[in-house]
């Protein structure tokens, strides 16, 4: 599966396109990490647990988007965008969406 956030896949021709495919996820870290992040917040710096959380959420969401594209028979997703929100405290929510296409 080719993923891209540009209009086209460089060097390839889009022969067929489908609608929007998307993946979404909500994830949290366990409470211990939340508490540690709270302490870290006092001195500042990278909150590693949360960086990790975002990375996990991104993988999760992209993975689901790819599965949607696969279920259509597409071999690439182009023009991918991310969007975040926050329903729950300390949770990462991510939308990944793009257009499923077949390239040759």
């Amino acid at each position, binding site marked *: 599966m080719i993923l891209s956030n540009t209009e086209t896949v460089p060097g390839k021709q889009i022969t*067929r396109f*489908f609608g929007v495919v998307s993946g979404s996820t909500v994830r949290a870290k366990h409470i211990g990490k939340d508490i540690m992040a709270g302490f870290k917040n006092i001195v500042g710096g990278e909150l590693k647990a949360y960086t990790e959380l975002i990375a996990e959420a991104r993988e999760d969401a992209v993975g*689901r988007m790819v599965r949607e594209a696969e279920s259509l028979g597409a071999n690439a997703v182009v023009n991918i965008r991310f969007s975040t929100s926050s329903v729950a405290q300390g949770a990462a929510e991510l939308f990944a969406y793009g257009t499923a296409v077949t390239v040759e």
Partner: protein
Amino acid sequence: MKFDPSLPEDGINVSRTHPLREALLLVGGVAAIALAVAAVAAVSVDLVAPHIPIELEVRLFSGWFDRAVEADAAVDPREQSLAELLGRMAGHWPESPYAFEIAIWDVPEPNAVALPGGVIAVTHGLLENVESENELAFVLGHELGHFRHRDHLRGLGRGVAFSLLLVAVGVGGGGSAVELASLAGEFAQRGFDREQEIEADRFGLALLAAEYGHVAGAEAFFEHLPELGGPGEGALASYFSTHPLHADRIQALQATAREMGWALRGEHRPLPALSTPR
């Protein structure tokens, strides 16, 4: 470039776990954590409590409950005779480092509490429902037993330790999660209290035997306590009650009395002008 109107497979973005399964798993996990936390808090406080010097305890807590004592002393003539009885009972525990005080609380439920610093609080409900001096002496002896084993500090310490830990857990969890955890913790704590009660009974019994030569007051006290609106019978009632069901305690009392050769029957002394409320 051709458009294909197919729809992607449905349900990719939602986990297939059944919500009830998830609920069961999570509730079980939280309950297990809360029980573990309660156990750790209880054990650590049990380890520390006996090593807190009594002078420190008295200094720390003197004044906390004094006001209650004075407020009632002015209006309640029963206080003096109670203090006198307490003095006699404490006299059989000569190595006691406390200077005990009595407080009378205007509470309808029959109860007595051992408070840090050497204060024993008894409620109006209790005073109005005991029928002889022996019974009252047993209650005071029981509370002295709590001081003897430093249970009053343990109870306080456990409560504080557990709530602190809960606050820590509550930082990120939802309100209902904390409620659930505190409930589980409460159950665990009640479980630990049962043994303390039976130990305190044993101590009270010894004081009773030393004062009167028999332990008649103890059994009599329990025999009519159920009438005072205590919890109903059954496993749940037993667990929900701070004090183990009376049948359990009476059985333990009888066993102790037999073992030590204390007479379970004997003459009851009348109450020292306690039963007439002001």
